[in-house]
């Protein structure tokens, strides 16, 4: 065993990279381990957007400064360079299976405000990886790629992290290895978490889509023979191209078939006449209830490790950066022999921010719609009544709140025409997502990773 690091960070995604950058800048000896042979390559489906650019999200106003090409987190007060391409997203449109649009924000109004009107920002995750890896190397972070960590052994004064025939020793470990975290699993941190289902996704880069504006987001629900997927068309960083995501929690859904259905049979099929798919990725991410205590035996978690993928990329960046700061503080406090608060400050923040302030239940509820409104007609009957333009947002929490408000009005009308739907929606609202997703949970199993 060679060098002893101050911190070993597992996973070079947004959380791990920012943790490494923070710790490296603070002078720690940092090892960053990534399982991909090339850490600059994206190999999984991802929306590649920063959500919630027009309102506070996890306590910050996330902002992109185009002049200096920096992504900024206003309240926490950190920023970093991202010199890849970007694309503003001005509104979100939910399209029912029969073609009714529910708009979150008016496209023209938002676009007229320019950068201040954007609700989200698409970026190129590979360019982000390149930018952040460069910043990490500038502050002397040792990056090891092709290392799939599968063993973590805490000792009294250090921790040993092993994988792919390599072994690393550190004072602390930051687990940033994503939603199906191996580190969390082997550390027993998943014990006691409720397992809901998997969130399964296919991402396709599609060029030549003719229909939506190149800077608006489309969401669409579908009911297919084998289950219910939903879709996102998110502007890609290449102008005019879209990231078409087919996602579901139902393991019976054939994603490739579902993606084909969108292009060939859906209400928006005409948009795809000249479309061409240029890249394809998949992802399969376990949805658990969040880890409440973010620290155990020298391991601190950041990003999706502890909280499904609900953190979004902005949340992963924020928690990664905070975790890097927390470990830097703890290492420093240890060195000068004062009371160690770094880690507990972080775990407190984690609890306040991710567990107490934002509701995981609300997040999971967002996936339950197909199990309440069970076919095209039913969703049409409800969403078809929403004509008002809702608040401009690309924030899963604000969005569902706005939707709930709009639904309340729709329900008043439906009370007379479809009382059975109203009853079901009311019951759905009162039920825990656990119960609503029970049939899916029964047929799902967390991915082995």
């Amino acid at each position, binding site marked *: 065993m060679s060098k002893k690091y101050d911190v070993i960070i597992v996973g070079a995604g947004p959380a791990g990279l920012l943790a490494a950058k923070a710790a490296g800048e603070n002078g720690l000896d940092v090892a960053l381990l990534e399982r991909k042979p090339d850490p600059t390559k994206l190999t999984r489906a991802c929306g590649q957007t920063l959500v919630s650019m027009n309102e506070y999200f996890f306590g910050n106003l996330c902002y992109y400064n185009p002049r200096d090409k920096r992504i900024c987190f206003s309240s926490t007060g950190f920023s970093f360079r991202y010199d890849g391409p970007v694309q503003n997203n001005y509104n979100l449109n939910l399209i029912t299976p029969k073609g009714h649009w529910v708009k979150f924000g008016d496209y023209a109004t938002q676009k007229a405000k320019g950068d201040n009107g954007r609700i989200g920002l698409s970026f190129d995750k590979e360019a982000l990886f390149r930018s952040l890896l460069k910043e990490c190397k500038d502050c002397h972070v040792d990056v090891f790629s092709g290392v799939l960590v599968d063993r973590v052994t805490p000792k009294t004064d250090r921790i040993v992290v092993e994988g792919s025939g390599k072994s690393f020793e550190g004072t602390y470990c930051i687990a940033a290895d994503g939603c199906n975290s191996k580190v969390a699993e082997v550390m027993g941190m998943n014990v006691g978490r409720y397992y809901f289902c998997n969130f399964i996704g296919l991402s396709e880069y599609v060029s030549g889509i003719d229909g939506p504006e190149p800077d608006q987001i489309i969401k669409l629900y579908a009911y297919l023979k084998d289950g219910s997927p939903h879709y996102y068309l998110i502007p890609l960083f290449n102008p005019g191209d879209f990231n078409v995501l087919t996602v579901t929690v139902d393991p019976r859904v054939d994603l490739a078939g579902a993606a084909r259905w969108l292009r060939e049979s859906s209400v928006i099929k005409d948009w795809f006449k000249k479309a061409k798919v240029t890249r394809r990725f998949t992802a399969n991410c376990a949805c658990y209830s969040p880890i409440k205590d973010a620290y155990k035996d020298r391991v601190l978690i950041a990003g999706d490790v502890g909280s499904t993928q609900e953190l979004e990329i902005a949340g992963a960046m924020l928690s990664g950066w905070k975790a890097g700061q927390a470990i830097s503080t703890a290492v420093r*406090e240890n060195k000068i022999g004062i009371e160690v608060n770094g880690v507990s400050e972080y775990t407190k923040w984690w609890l306040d921010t991710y567990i107490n302030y934002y509701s995981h239940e609300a997040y999971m509820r967002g996936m339950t719609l197909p199990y309440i409104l069970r076919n095209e007609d039913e969703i049409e009957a409800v969403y078809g009544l929403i004509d008002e333009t809702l608040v401009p947002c690309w924030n899963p929490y604000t969005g569902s709140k706005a939707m709930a408000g709009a639904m309340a009005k729709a329900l008043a009308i439906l009370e007379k025409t479809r009382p059975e739907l109203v009853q079901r929606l009311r019951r759905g609202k009162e039920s825990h997502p656990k119960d609503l997703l029970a049939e899916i949970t029964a047929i799902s199993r967390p991915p082995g990773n």
Partner: protein
Amino acid sequence: MSNRKFDVVIVGAGPAGFNAARAIGEAGFSVALVDRKKDVTKFDRSCAQTLVSYTEPYMKNLICFNQKAGLVSFLYDGFSVKYTGPYRNLYAWYFYSPAGYPVRLGNPEKGRQIGDAARAGIVIDKESLFKDFVSVVRPLGVEIFTGVHVQKVTTTEKSASVIGDGGEIFEGRYVIAADGVNSRIAEEMGWNKNRYYWCNLITTSYYFKGLKGPDPNTIVTSTGFLKDGTALFFMAPRPFEDEWNVQFLTVNPKVSHQEAADFFFNKAFTASWFKDAKQLKAFSRTCSCYDPIEEPFKDNVLAIGDAGSTQEIENTGALMCGWKGGQAVAQAIREEQLGLPVTGISNYLRWWKETYCEGYSHEAYMKNWVLGFVLNKAEDMSYVFGLVKDELPANFNPYSAPKMMGRTLAALGPTIAKERPDLLPKMGKLRLPLKEVYAEVTRISKPIVD
């Protein structure tokens, strides 16, 4: 007469102003950084040029220097400042009695053995810090205007402007006053009217080469008893080989700095150090000591750093204020642009109040200069210091080090009561309200404005 518009106009390119410019620049806003010096990388004032308190938290931060990457990190707030210039570790602070006996906070030999983990602070070269700042803010589009001595501030509902001595006008959505201890802007904004004024801190500073004797990693202070009162001797190594920064600090305007220099260079126990020394440079500085401004924001003008709180903030605190103030203003502008409630400034003001007005005691800082009024005879001070045999922990925090000294001296009470009961009434003065102790000096002092 020119009128230029920016998102933010910052007056003063010191540690606070530069760091504010950087924070706002990184957030993507346009910044004018206005300074009265012709060359902002030059430094020509008395300053210890230290970054304090690496052994304990300071102003709600834990500071560490990462020389490998050339960054000074502020761990609790989570920002770093580029510093690639020369530095020297400080392992100890010696409070010498007039007779030349040191009360020791820390041990330089042990410190050198342990290395960086034992440093209580570092000395830097402020010109290098400024050069690094210029290299950071220039690529962010921060426009630096030199040779502009701001004289006036005007405000409207949604802007503020500063006017230079040549009539130049710089207008911003916000103005940040980072113009230091004798802030012209604070005066113009009327903020000094309700502040308690203590006195002036008058400093003369010399750079020397070739001193023989003092330890190169230790801060030295001592007190000189002169014709009209006492002068504090403060000596720090410079980050350059064999160079020293020697300062005389007085709060009593009657005390002659010439006499202080003559005393310490030629007569005191320090004289042998200076025998073959070569004087390189000399500067001086007078700074008004007020209580902090409790609410340093009005009409789109925000005062940060020493502009709001004497020089007690230290370089370290000024960097924090700059960072926080810059973030606050950037956040406020962003919130306005998005049509959200504006919280940026009020967050800063809360932090300022908690940190500088309530969290730390301004009186504790003013205590730094008062020992000479109390133990007002050289032999008395030498006697009391001589009773302190133990080495105290290394500390380079201008608030807690004097407190530690105070506690140590107070613990000598029983011994003094037995051996020198005549000293007890004098020592008791340390428990009087500090304003009373200062009263005479306050009466004969007058604040100045740059």
